[in-house]
Every structure is written in C-alpha cells, then in structure tokens.
C-alpha cells in the first residue's frame, strides 16, 4: 500500500474565524480523520499553527512566516494509506478545509525507500 500526504492549503491564512466556527471545523476535521482511521487508512497528521513560524530565505533572511506577501498558507497535513492516487483523492474530497472558497487539498505521493 502506498502513502499519500494530503496538504491543506488556505487561500487566505489571515482570515480570522470566530471561536464557534473554529469549534465546528475542529469537530468536522476530527470526524473526517476518524472516518479515515476507521478504515485503517490513517497514518499520521498535524496542524500547522502560525505562532512560532518563520521563513528562512536564500540569503539567510528570516521573516515571521510567509504572511503579508503571500496570502496562501498551509494549515496542516495528514498522511493516509491508499492503493492509488484516486483513492487518496476520495479521502481528500471529504476534507472540511474545502468548505472555504479558494481553499484546496494537495494530494502528494510519499516517496519511500528511495522509490518515487
């Protein structure tokens, strides 16, 4: 079985949601991950908060995150087991991040043992 990373891309990371809205998204995300885990297809996952984030550029200039110049941010990722990219895409379709207009989930196969 192959492994795929599902990367959550937010069109505008600066948008502030209400605590209630965050609560609802959290629950939806947990249910979505729980559904994948119940199929024994979940490997691991993580949210990527904005605090303590930095961007290091080629001339060693360090900035406080990419926010400002680029609006798009990565909010988190999960790794799933799937027989094919199509199956991984089916998992991605359920991701609550997609409820936000302009957001996307990028599906990428993980290279294992040097095999791409």
């Amino acid at each position, binding site marked *: 079985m192959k492994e795929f990373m599902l990367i959550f891309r937010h069109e505008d990371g600066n948008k502030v949601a209400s605590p209630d809205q965050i609560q609802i998204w959290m*629950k939806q995300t*947990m*249910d979505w*991950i*729980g*559904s994948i*885990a*119940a*199929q*024994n297809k*979940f490997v691991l*996952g993580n949210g990527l908060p904005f605090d303590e984030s930095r961007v290091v550029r080629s001339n060693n200039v360090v900035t406080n995150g990419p926010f400002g110049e680029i609006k798009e941010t990565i909010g988190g990722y999960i790794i799933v087991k799937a027989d094919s990219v199509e199956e991984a895409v089916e998992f991605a379709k359920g991701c609550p991040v997609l409820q936000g207009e302009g957001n996307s989930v990028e599906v990428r196969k993980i290279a294992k043992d040097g095999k791409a």
Partner: protein
Amino acid sequence: MEQQALIPHLFRTEFRKIATVLSNLFGIEHVEVAEDIASETFLAALETWTYKGIPENPTAWLYAVAKNKAKNYISRNAVFTNKIARQIKYSLSEGEEIEIDLSDKNIADSQLQMLFAICHPSISTEAQIGLSLRILCGFGIDEIANALLTNKETINKRLYRAKEKLRLENVKIEVPGEAEINMRLETVLTTLYLLFNEGYYSESQDAVLREDLCLEATRLTYLLIENEQTNKPAVNALLSLMCFHSSRFEARKNENGEIILYNDQDESLWNYELISKGVYFLHQASQGDKISKYHLEASIAYWHTIKADTRKKWEKILHLFNQLLQIEYSPIAALNRTYVLAKANGKAAAIIEAEKLNLADNHYYFTLLGELYTDIDNKKAKQNFQKALSLAKTQSDKQTIQKKLTTLDDLMIDE
C-alpha cells in the same frame, strides 16, 4: 470454612505467593521447581489436614511447610546446590540457613518483579497471559485451558516453551531500571489488558472463572499503582477502565449466561462503588502529557456510565473513538465508532461510513448494518442480520442476532 472449601480458597490466594517468592529466590530458570514445591505444599496440606484437622493458622502452616520443602530441596539436590544455590540472591556464609521471606512486602515485591519477567518481549503475548495465570494468579492448567478455550496439552506446551525461552534469554526477575521501564511497562500493560479482556469477553461457561480472571488482572494492575516506580498515568488509566467494565459484571449477563446489551441493562445492577473508583483513577491518570489508548478507552467507558441518551454524550464518545482509532486501529473500535456516529450524527451519515468499512468477514459488521438499516430500509436490515447470523460462530452471538431478526420481523408485519 470447611476443609473442602478452605483448601481451594487457600490455593487460589497462597499458591501464587509461594510460587513467586520461591521463583524469585531460585531464578527464572527454576520456575518449575518453585511451582512443584508450591504444589507439594498443598498436597501435604490435603493429606495432613484430613487426618489431623485444620491447623490454627492455615496460611502460616503452608508457609512453614513450603519453606521446609524449599530448604530440603536445596540441600538434597546436589546439582541444584552446586550450580544454583551459589547464585541465590541471598549469598550465604558457611552454615548459614537460607532465608525464605514470605512477608507481605516481599510477596508484593516478588509478584511485581515476576510480572515484569513474565511480560518479557521475548515471549508471545499468549504465553505471557498463560504464565501470568499460572504463576502470578495460581490458576490450575485445567482452569487456564478452560478460560482460554483450549486444551490442557496446548497450555502445557505453551507454558513449557515460554519457560524455556525465559531461561535461554536469562531474563532477570526484577523491575527494570528507569531507562527501560516505560518500554517494558507497555508490554506489561498490554498483557494485563488482554488478561482482563480474556475474562470479560470469554465464551467460557464458567462465570466464576471469568470474573476471577478480571479480578486477577485488576489486582496485578493495582500492584503497579502501589509501587512508586510504576505508578504511571497509563497504569491508572488501565485500572480505571477495568473498574468501569467490572462495574457492569452483574448487569451484562442474564441467569442463562446470555449477554445483555448495554441498552437493555438494568442500571440498578451496576456497581456504583466501582464506578466511583474508576472516576478516581481516571482523574489520577490525567497527570502527565501523553494520552494512551487506555486513557481513551477509560474515558469512553466513563461516558457509558451515564445512561442519559443526549447528543452531547455521543459527540464526546465519537471524539474519543476518533482519537482512539488514530492511535490504534481495531475492527471493533471502527464498528463502535460507526454505531456512535449514528447516535451523534444520525443513521444516514453512519450508513455511508459503515459501507466504507472493509469488514466483510465480520458478523458484528453485518449486525451493525442491520441495526443502521432498521426503520430506514427494513428489507436491507433483514438481509444484513441474516448475513450476520451465517457468519456468527458462538451460541450467544447467534442468539443475540436471532432476537434482533425476530424483533425486525414483528416490525415488518406491522408495516
């Protein structure tokens, strides 16, 4: 207590104490000698007490006889004396008598050390459970075979191989040091968890034996909590789980030994003292920053002690199952999650999720589908229950499914 009842009772409580203390003294390679001496001690009690009556302090009598037999064994058996006695922990000077310490403290220490020796990663979990039952719990081979639904020969072979392995690996009877303890404790907890489950979910007809298994698993877990070194959050979580489960002993089976499902249980039969103990240990378990599967399972069990059928409750339980499945997948957790999903988010959502579960050889899966389709598509519900019935292996499972089919048939007639 009459002698006929007294000896089996003492066997259950004292055999393991004598066997573990002597095993500790002799080393893992001579567990069998320790077992033999413990058995002979009880044989002697049976013979002597029948003629002379029960002594004033039967336990002290047993300990005295066991000590004598151990000493005799050491002095009589030349090979043993030469090779082993020298290695015996209590190094003796010339002419000094060997000390066999059957104090409460040494018994508890020995049991704890032995628990770590038996739950050694070099032997299979099955063997760990068997050895624990034999040496730490004093179960007879017959009882172990009965509880684990297999035969005496299998158990004997399994125990023999496991002891050989422990001997070859030269496993030390000790509580591992700080560096190793968390990793080793994980194996110990797995074994205790499975030992409890063997009792709780066993198909064995012997109800007393099943409950004994659970009690022993609980007792051994409590040993870990009494020791500062092993009193960790995950241990408290496991004990909490055992308390919650045990609180439903009376309520979950009827007089014919048939399982009564949670929804149909009489709450007045729940043991509220055990429930409050479960809450206490769950609270103790919340110190620390790591959530183990025992934390999650105990929390799920906690919510089940609240019978109110509120959406909030089911959402909490769903959240816990989501987390549990991320830590460790199991078909039963996946099925339970789907059941809870129906309670929290409705049957329609749960059916979609259920169809994704790839568990086509599992009768619980079809029972669940049957439940979910009931009232939504009763024909489909019936097909699923029938499929479940054809896959079920045990009598009690078949009875449970049959009952559901009958109820469904009544429903369909009314339509």
